[in-house]
């Protein structure tokens, strides 16, 4: 059409991309995961609503594992380092990730935080995500497993309202069961039923950080994840057969 002025015509060129939108985050998460496996460290992404009891569960975990496992935690919050201070007081090596206004942690935030806290001697690293039942589920951090803490006061149908997070969970901890006597209308069975409807391979442990109920079962679940990490570690250390 335009062959006189030399401006050149515009062509529309379709480019097939087929790339995950969060591929940058995926790469950083894979890098984190590589580090964790290299050190045979079990990394757990702990998610749940604000106030679900994530920090309290980790405090109870530290108390129960004192002298048996070395535990570290990264605590994500929009503001304050209160959770990290609480975790430290419970004997956990902790650092906070203050996200400002971001509603979730991403792999780069975790990577950055690990540059400022010694972690390679830890047995377990808990990444306590920002309290939120939506956004944290979307970002891989490099964890070995996702754990969602859901308290009995949040309502029996929360998993149905926020299916994505429960769909991605490897374990759901139903927390604060010491409050049940004050909640006559709440049934743990109905909460579990909601979880089962959205979680592909449902696994639920009912706990109270206050009384210690269910904590042993939770510790057994954690210990059960260790062989998986050890196997990945061995696979990484063994050169592929030529």
């Amino acid at each position, binding site marked *: 059409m335009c062959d006189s002025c030399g401006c050149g015509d*515009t*062509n*529309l*060129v379709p480019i097939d991309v087929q790339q995950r939108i969060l*591929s940058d985050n995926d790469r950083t998460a894979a890098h984190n995961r590589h580090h964790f496996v290299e050190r045979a460290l079990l990394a757990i992404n702990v998610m749940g609503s604000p106030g679900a009891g994530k920090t309290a569960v980790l405090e109870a975990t530290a108390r129960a594992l004192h002298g048996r496992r070395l535990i570290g935690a990264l605590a994500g919050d929009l503001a304050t380092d209160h959770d990290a201070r609480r975790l430290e007081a419970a004997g956990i090596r902790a650092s906070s990730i203050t996200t400002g206004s971001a509603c979730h942690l991403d792999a780069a935030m975790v990577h950055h935080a690990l540059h400022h806290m010694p972690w390679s001697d830890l047995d377990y690293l808990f990444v306590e995500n920002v309290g939120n039942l939506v*956004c944290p589920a979307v970002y891989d951090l490099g964890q070995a497993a996702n754990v969602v803490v859901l308290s009995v006061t949040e309502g029996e149908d929360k998993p149905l309202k926020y299916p994505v997070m429960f769909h991605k969970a490897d374990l759901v901890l139903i927390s604060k069961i010491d409050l049940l006597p004050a909640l006559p209308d709440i049934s743990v069975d109905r909460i579990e039923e909601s979880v089962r409807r959205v979680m592909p391979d449902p696994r639920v442990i009912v706990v109270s950080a206050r009384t210690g109920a269910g904590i042993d079962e939770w510790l057994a679940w954690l210990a059960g994840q260790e062989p998986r990490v050890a196997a990945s570690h061995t696979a990484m250390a063994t050169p592929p057969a030529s």
Partner: protein
Amino acid sequence: MHEYSIVQALYDTVVAQAASNHATRVHEVHVRIGELSGVDVGLLETAWKTFRVRTICEAAPLEVSRVAGDDLVLERVVLEVRDV
């Protein structure tokens, strides 16, 4: 509300595609969003309209195909490339 963070990642990928193909403008952006991706399509579209202002993507609509599963994928871009 992590859709802005998703759109930032999407925008960066699209601009990288445009640069490597020497495009003068981005004409269309096609994404595939799964029901279980955790992304709200309405918010994503709003975020895209905010991000693209005064960029190479200014005139590029975001075409969304919704699927089952948790896909969050940039499928295709249509670029305007000048003949030389």
